C-alpha cells in the first residue's frame, strides 16, 4: 500500500507534537515532510525566557534533535518557507522552488509578534521577543548597551525584563494599563506583582502609551503620548502576538482572527488542517502550550482515523517564569454580575488568593505568593467541580486524594515538555521507576520548570501505593532507597570503610554507583573515619582528582593559595614568569582575592605547580576556598582589628579540609564589612574589643544573608567557634549542601546550642583537629609521585 503523503508547514512545538502523536498511533503509515522557517530543529519556545535569564542555554532547549527526524523518516526542510498552496491539486510551493504534493496538509505556522507601528520602529536596537534570533540579539545588546525599555507589562514582557536585568541592564517596563498582566491577573494581584518586581530592580511606567521611538540609526529613547521621554538603547516590544495566517488567507481558507477550525482541527477546505497558535477554535486563539498539545492530540487521532470526540477547547492557566515570583491564574479572572468570589489576602505573608464562583461551580482563580493550589484548582475548574467540593477538600487536610487520580491518561502533567499522565504511569510500571528523579530522567516530566513535581510524586504514590511511600524520604540517588542519615548510620554501625563495601553491604541497585552517590559516599566515609578511610580518587569529580578546574575546552585553570588575599612582589614575579613560560591564555583576578591562570594544558599542570612552588588554592574543591579580607587596622583609618591577620590564620587552619560543599569566608575590620562577610559561609567582623561571627551567608544562586552566630573576644575564640560550626556542618549536612541551605534547613538555634555548650564544642573541635591532621598539600604530593604523574597527568602519544 502506498503511504499517504502528509505535509506540515511550521516546524514548531504544535506541529511536531502532532507528528509525534501520529507516529505513536500509526508508525510508518505516512510519508512525512516538514517545512520550517527557522534554521533549527524543533525547540521549546517557552524556555526562551529561561535562556535569556541565564538559567539554561539555547542548545539545551532543543526538543527534537536532527537525529529524531532521521530516525522517524521525517523529511525536514529547515530554513525553507512555503509560499503557496494549490488547494485544488493539493500541492505546496516553497521559496526555494520546491513542489510537494500532499494527501493531508497541516498548517502550524504559529504566530508573529505584534510590532506596534510606531515611528522609528525600524531602528537598530528594536526587537521582539519570539525566537532564538531575538534572544541572541538581546544577549548581544546587553554586552554593549546599558538601558533597556520593554514595551508591554504582560507575561512575555516581564519575563524579557527579568532576563535583561539578569544580563546586567537597567530595565524600564512601559505598560498601557494601570496594573501588570491585566489579562491574567486582577488589580490586587497585579499590584502585588509590581511591588515584588520593583524590589528585584525593575522600573515601571504605567498608563503610558509610547508615541515614538527616538534615535538616528540606533534607538536612543522613547517618547510618550504625554510628551515625556526616557533614554533607552534597546527596545523590546512585547505587546502581544497575532496568528500567522497570511498563507492561509492567500489560499482562501476561512479566517477570522486565526484560521477557523472545527473540533477535528479541519479548516474550511478539505484535507487542510490547522493546529496551534494560528488556529481559531470556537472563537478562541490560544497562545499557551497546553492547548496546543491538546489540539495536536485531537488532530493526530483524526488523521489516523481513530474514533474520538475531538477537541473541546481548553481551560487556560498561566504561570510567570520569573524566579522568586509565584503567580498563577486560570479561567475567569474578573468579577461579573453573575460571579461570587472567595478572597484571602494575607498581608503578612504577602499572599493573595481569589476564587471565582459562577452557578455554584468554580470558574476561575488568581493566586499570588503561594501557588501550590494552582494545579488542583485548574483540574477542578476543568472538571466543572462544585464549589462545595473544593471547600470540603481544602478543609479536610488529610483527605489528600490527589487530583491526578481523576485525570484521564492523555491529560498533560508536565506542560513544559508535554508529558501526559499516561506516559508517566506507563513509564513507572514498565521501567520500574520509584522516584521523581527517575521519572524525570526517563520521561522528561518536571525537567524544565519543576512546578509539576508534586503531581509526578502523586502519580508515583497512586501507581505504586505504599511501595512509594517508603521511598519518599530523600534517597542519596537512584542507586539506593536509603537516605543520607541511614547510610551514615550503617557506615558507623557496620564499620564500612570503602564505598564499594558500602554498595555491596547496603544492596546498591547498581554495581558501581553513579556520579551522584560515588563522591557523596567518599565524603561521608572520610568524615566518619578521617584517618582510616583512604580517599578514592576514582570517586572524585575531575577537578578534585586533578587538583585543577577543568574548562570547556579541556584545559585547566590554576589558582595558587594566597592566604588572606595578601601577596608580595616575589610571588607576583614568579606567577608572571610561570604565566609567560607556559603561555597561559588568561590571567584573571578571582572574586576571592587571588590570581587565576587559565588555559593550562593537563600535562603542564605538574610543571606549572613545580615552578610556582606555592600551595594549591583549592579553587576547585568541596573545601575551604578562600578567606577574603579587608585591609584592616594595619592601614585602614576605620579598621579596629587585624582582619588580614585573622583571615590568614583562618585560611592556614582550615585549608584542605573536606566539607560537604565549598566553604568561603570573609573577615572585615569594621561594620562596613568590605570583605562581604554577610554573604559568606563564615563571615567575621572585627569591632572594638569584640569579634562577630556570622554563618550561612551566600552570594551565589540563592542569595542569603548570613546569620549572626556568635560574639567572641579573642582571635583564638574565632578559630574555635568557626571550627566547631564547620565540624557540625560536616557531620550533619548532606553532601553538596551549602551552609546557607543547611542553616536554613536545621535552623540556627540547634547549632548554637551545640557549639555554645563548652563540652560539646571541645568535642567538635577535637574531631575537627583529627580531620585536619590528614591534610597533605596536593600539588606537591603529585609532583613527588611518579605513579600519580603517570596515571593521571600523562597522555599517550600513539603512532
Amino acid at each position, binding site marked *: 500500500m502506498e503511504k499517504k503523503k502528509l505535509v506540515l508547514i511550521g516546524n514548531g512545538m504544535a506541529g511536531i507534537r502532532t507528528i509525534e502523536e501520529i507516529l505513536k498511533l500509526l508508525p510508518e503509515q505516512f510519508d512525512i515532510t516538514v517545512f520550517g522557517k527557522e534554521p533549527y530543529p524543533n525547540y521549546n519556545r517557552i524556555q526562551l525566557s529561561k535562556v535569556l535569564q541565564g538559567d539554561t542555554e539555547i*542548545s539545551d532547549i532543543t526538543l527534537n*534533535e536532527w*537525529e529524531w527526524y532521521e530516525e522517524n523518516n521525517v523529511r525536514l526542510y529547515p530554513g525553507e518557507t512555503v509560499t503557496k498552496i494549490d488547494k485544488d491539486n493539493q500541492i505546496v510551493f516553497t521559496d526555494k522552488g520546491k513542489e510537494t504534493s500532499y494527501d493531508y496538509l497541516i498548517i502550524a505556522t504559529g504566530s508573529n509578534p505584534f510590532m506596534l507601528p510606531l515611528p522609528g520602529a525600524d531602528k537598530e536596537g528594536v526587537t521582539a521577543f519570539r525566537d532564538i534570533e531575538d534572544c541572541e540579539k538581546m544577549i548581544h545588546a546587553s554586552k554593549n548597551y546599558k538601558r533597556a525599555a520593554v514595551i508591554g507589562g504582560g507575561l512575555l514582557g516581564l519575563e524579557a525584563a527579568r532576563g535583561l536585568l539578569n544580563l546586567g541592564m537597567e530595565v524600564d517596563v512601559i505598560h498601557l494599563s494601570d496594573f501588570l498582566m491585566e489579562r491574567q491577573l486582577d488589580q490586587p494581584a497585579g499590584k502585588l506583582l509590581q511591588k515584588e518586581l520593583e524590589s528585584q530592580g525593575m522600573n515601571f511606567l504605567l498608563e503610558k502609551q509610547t508615541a515614538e521611538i527616538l534615535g538616528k540609526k540606533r534607538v536612543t529613547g522613547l517618547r510618550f503620548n504625554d510628551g515625556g521621554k526616557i533614554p533607552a538603547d534597546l527596545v523590546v516590544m512585547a505587546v502581544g502576538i497575532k496568528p500567522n495566517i497570511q498563507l492561509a488567507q492567500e489560499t482562501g481558507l476561512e479566517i477570522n482572527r486565526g484560521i477557523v477550525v472545527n473540533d477535528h482541527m479541519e479548516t474550511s477546505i478539505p484535507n487542510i488542517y490547522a493546529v496551534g497558535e494560528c488556529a481559531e477554535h470556537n472563537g478562541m486563539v490560544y497562545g499557551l502550550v497546553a492547548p496546543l498539545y491538546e489540539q495536536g492530540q485531537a488532530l493526530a487521532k483524526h488523521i489516523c482515523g481513530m474514533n474520538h470526540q475531538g477537541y473541546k477547547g481548553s481551560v487556560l492557566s498561566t504561570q510567570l517564569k520569573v524566579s522568586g515570583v509565584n503567580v498563577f491564574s486560570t479561567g475567569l479572572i474578573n468579577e461579573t454580575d453573575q460571579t461570587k468570589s472567595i478572597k484571602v489576602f494575607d498581608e503578612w505573608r504577602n499572599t493573595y488568593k481569589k476564587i471565582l464562583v459562577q452557578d455554584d461551580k468554580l470558574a476561575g482563580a488568581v493566586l499570588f505568593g503561594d501557588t501550590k493550589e494552582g494545579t488542583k484548582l485548574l483540574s477542578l475548574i476543568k472538571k466543572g467541580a462544585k464549589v462545595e467540593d473544593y471547600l470540603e477538600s481544602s478543609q479536610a487536610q488529610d483527605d489528600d486524594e490527589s487530583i491526578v487520580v481523576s485525570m484521564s491518561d492523555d491529560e498533560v502533567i508536565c506542560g513544559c515538555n508535554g508529558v501526559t499522565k499516561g506516559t508517566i504511569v506507563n513509564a513507572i510500571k514498565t521501567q520500574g521507576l520509584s522516584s521523581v528523579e527517575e521519572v*524525570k*530522567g*526517563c*520521561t*522528561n516530566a518536571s*525537567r524544565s520548570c519543576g512546578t509539576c513535581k508534586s503531581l509526578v510524586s502523586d502519580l508515583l504514590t497512586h501507581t505504586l501505593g505504599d511501595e512509594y511511600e517508603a521511598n519518599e524520604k530523600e534517597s542519596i540517588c537512584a542507586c539506593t532507597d536509603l537516605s543520607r542519615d541511614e547510610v551514615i548510620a550503617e557506615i558507623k554501625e557496620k564499620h564500612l570503610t570503602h564505598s564499594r563495601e558500602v554498595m555491596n553491604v547496603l544492596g546498591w541497585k*547498581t*554495581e*558501581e*554507583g*553513579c*556520579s551522584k552517590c*560515588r*563522591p557523596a559516599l567518599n565524603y561521608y566515609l572520610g568524615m566518619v573515619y578521617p584517618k582510616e578511610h583512604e580517599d578514592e*580518587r*576514582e*570517586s572524585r*569529580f*575531575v577537578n578534585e*582528582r*586533578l587538583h585543577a578546574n*577543568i574548562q*570547556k*575546552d*579541556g584545559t585547566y585553570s590554576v589558582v595558587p593559595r594566597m592566604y588572606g588575599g595578601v601577596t608580595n612582589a616575589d610571588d607576583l614575579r614568579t606567577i608572571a614568569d610561570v604565566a609567560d613560560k607556559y603561555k597561559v591564555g588568561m590571567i584573571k583576578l578571582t572574586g576571592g582575592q587571588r590570581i587565576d591562570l587559565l588555559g593550562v594544558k*593537563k600535562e603542564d599542570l605538574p610543571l606549572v605547580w613545580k615552578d610556582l612552588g606555592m600551595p594549591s588554592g583549592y579553587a576547585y574543591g568541596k573545601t575551604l576556598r578562600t578567606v577574603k579580607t579587608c585591609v584592616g587596622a594595619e592601614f585602614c583609618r576605620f579598621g579596629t582589628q587585624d582582619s588580614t591577620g585573622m583571615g590568614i590564620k583562618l585560611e592556614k587552619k582550615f585549608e584542605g579540609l573536606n566539607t560537604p560543599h565549598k566553604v568561603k569566608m570573609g573577615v572585615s575590620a569594621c561594620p562596613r564589612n568590605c570583605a562581604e562577610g554577610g554573604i559568606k559561609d563564615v563571615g567575621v567582623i572585627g569591632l572594638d574589643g569584640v569579634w562577630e561571627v556570622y554563618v550561612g551567608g551566600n552570594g551565589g544562586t540563592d542569595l542569603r544573608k548570613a546569620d549572626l552566630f556568635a560574639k567572641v573576644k579573642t582571635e583564638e575564640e574565632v578559630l574555635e567557634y568557626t571550627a566547631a560550626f564547620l565540624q557540625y556542618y560536616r557531620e550533619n549536612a548532606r553532601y553538596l549542601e551549602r551552609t546557607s541551605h543547611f542553616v536554613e534547613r536545621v535552623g540556627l538555634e540547634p547549632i548554637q546550642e551545640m557549639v555554645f555548650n563548652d563540652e560539646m564544642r571541645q568535642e567538635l573541635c577535637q574531631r575537627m583537629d583529627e580531620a585536619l591532621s590528614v591534610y597533605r598539600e596536593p600539588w606537591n604530593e603529585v609532583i613527588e609521585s611518579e605513579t600519580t604523574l*603517570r*596515571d*593521571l597527568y600523562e*597522555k*599517550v*602519544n*600513539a*603512532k
Partner: protein
Amino acid sequence: MEQTVKKVFVGNYSELPERLGKTVILQDKEIAIFKLASGDVRAIENRCPHRGGVLAEGMVSGEHVFCPLHDWKINITDGLVQAPDEGCVQTFEVVKEEEQVFVLVPNEVTQS
C-alpha cells in the same frame, strides 16, 4: 569500500590506572581508554557529543562514564548516550596481547 584497520599500541596493561580513563592522542584525534573494575579495557572517542567534553576525565561506573562537563552518561561498550539525553560516540575494538594493549582504529579515522 574496503575498510582497513590500524593496530595502535596504547600502553602496558598494568600501567593503565583502574576505574579511570587515559587519553591517547592519535594524530589529530583523541581516544579515551578505560580500564574497568572488571579488568576489561575499552576505548571510545574522547569527545562527548554534547559539548565536546573530554570523556577520559569522567567518572567511571561499571560500563558507563559520566562526562565531566555536564554529567551526560555514556555507555563505554556500545557508545550510546543514556536517556534522557541522546546521541552516541564512536567505539574502538581493544586487543590485549599479553601485557600489551592495542586499539584497532579504522583507517578513515586516522586519515580524515
